[in-house]
């Protein structure tokens, strides 16, 4: 995919939005010509930047927490047949549950503040990373392990030179696949029990202030947040896992 094509696709979406706004011609669908200036206005002079920063921090904290806990757990399960046999059924049951339905429960237990939001994001990413890292570790050819052992590697060196680098692509793939879901669920958690975050900002402008251009600006900001995270992970993948992209 070329950068130029991506820019063109972005412009095409804006054009489509503009045409739709002109056809619908109602206040509930302001055109990008109206929304984009409001977006910058709110970002630079309003308090949207503050909300965006808080949302960003929640996603980032959830991501980091998930990587820090799920990657080692996945590596352990991938190396120990016994533990894997024990935990597999549990993971099998928990993995497909749409974590978003747990939002009310998490809020009930952890109440207001950042933690429940970070925790929900953490849960979504945790299983994704756990499963991918585990499968990656399980899929390492025995010959590779034996060869590296024959070079003198014990448990620690195997971990450092083989399992750790092997888990990196799995972590990044898991993040890339689920960061969109994480932002979506963040939106839901931010629509209640908080006064900060883009979700709250969108909800407030939509339902209380009835300020549709600002609401759209918030939607745009949340979309950009998701996009930025996705592209960052993609960029990291190309940087850290060069070998996967060579021809």
């Amino acid at each position, binding site marked *: 995919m070329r950068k130029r094509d991506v820019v063109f696709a972005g412009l095409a979406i804006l054009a489509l939005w503009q045409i739709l706004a002109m056809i619908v011609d109602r206040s509930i669908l302001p055109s990008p010509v109206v929304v984009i200036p409001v977006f910058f206005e709110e970002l630079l002079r309003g308090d949207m930047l503050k909300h965006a920063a808080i949302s960003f921090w929640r996603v980032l904290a959830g991501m980091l927490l998930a990587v820090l806990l799920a990657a080692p757990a996945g590596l352990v399960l991938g190396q120990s047949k016994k533990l894997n046999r024990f935990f597999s059924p549990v993971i099998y049951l928990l993995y497909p549950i749409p974590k978003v339905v747990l939002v009310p429960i998490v809020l009930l237990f952890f109440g207001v503040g950042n933690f429940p939001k970070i925790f929900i994001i953490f849960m979504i990413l945790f299983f994704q990373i756990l499963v991918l890292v585990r499968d990656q570790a399980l899929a390492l050819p025995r010959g590779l392990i034996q*060869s590296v052992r024959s070079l003198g590697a014990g448990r620690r060196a195997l971990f450092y030179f083989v399992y750790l680098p092997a888990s990196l692509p799995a972590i990044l793939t898991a993040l890339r696949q689920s960061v969109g879901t994480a932002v979506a669920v963040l939106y839901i958690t931010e629509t209640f029990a908080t006064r900060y975050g883009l979700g709250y900002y969108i909800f407030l402008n939509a339902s209380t202030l009835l300020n549709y251009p600002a609401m759209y600006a918030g939607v745009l900001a949340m979309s950009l947040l998701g996009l930025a995270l996705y592209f960052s992970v993609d960029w990291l993948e190309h940087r850290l896992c060069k070998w996967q992209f*060579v021809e």
Partner: protein
Amino acid sequence: MITLNNLNFSYQSTPIFQNFTWHIQRGERWALLGASGCGKTTLLYLLAGLRFSDSEKVLIDGHEIMRPRPQTGLILQEYGLLPWATVEENVRLGARIRSFYGADGVHAPSHETRVTRNLSAWLKRLGLDALSAKYPSQISGGQGQRTAIARTLSLNPDLLLMDEPFSSLDALTRADLQNLTLELCAEENLTLVMVTHAIEEAAIMGDKILLLGNPPNENAQIIENPRAGEEGYRDSEEYTELCRDLRQRMERA
């Protein structure tokens, strides 16, 4: 150098070796020949310290083998290279693992007997210098095995174990790498044990050939092949005769 005395080994309660005795002298080149399932790879892994016998241990230089020995190099058929590391990084891996532990005598020799030839010299010797920045997925099978050989030999082993290292390569590349291995064994004064199912390869590589039959193996047949490695041996009458002889023995075994 290597002594197996009355060794027993079973796999899932099927005996593979029973009272098996075998001696290897320093500098010998052994080919382990036999059909699939005869236990030749098992025997190699016993020497490598990656599997363990039920009773008597394998002795190398008088020491019981309890784990992979730092002076032993192992090269497998495939999958030996880290896919995320370049050719050069793969060749460097052994040295990095050694410095990871330091000269502890367990993972690395307690003292280096001679200064390691630098890695770029090994890359050059194996014709890999132009490929050093490539990843394993970008090079051919033969180049991959050259990388594995460079990585192993850069650690100054005295014993080289190979498990069907060239069997997935095309005929020309295979002959090329067989000759290279023979040259390197002579240059580095290596003891070689190579597992193969190919009669021709055993006849080319081994100055001694150990022929394993259906398990349990007690007394394996040893065939002397003193002219192996000599120039022109591949085209000689003697070589053809040996191959014929080996084939008949395998059929009987």
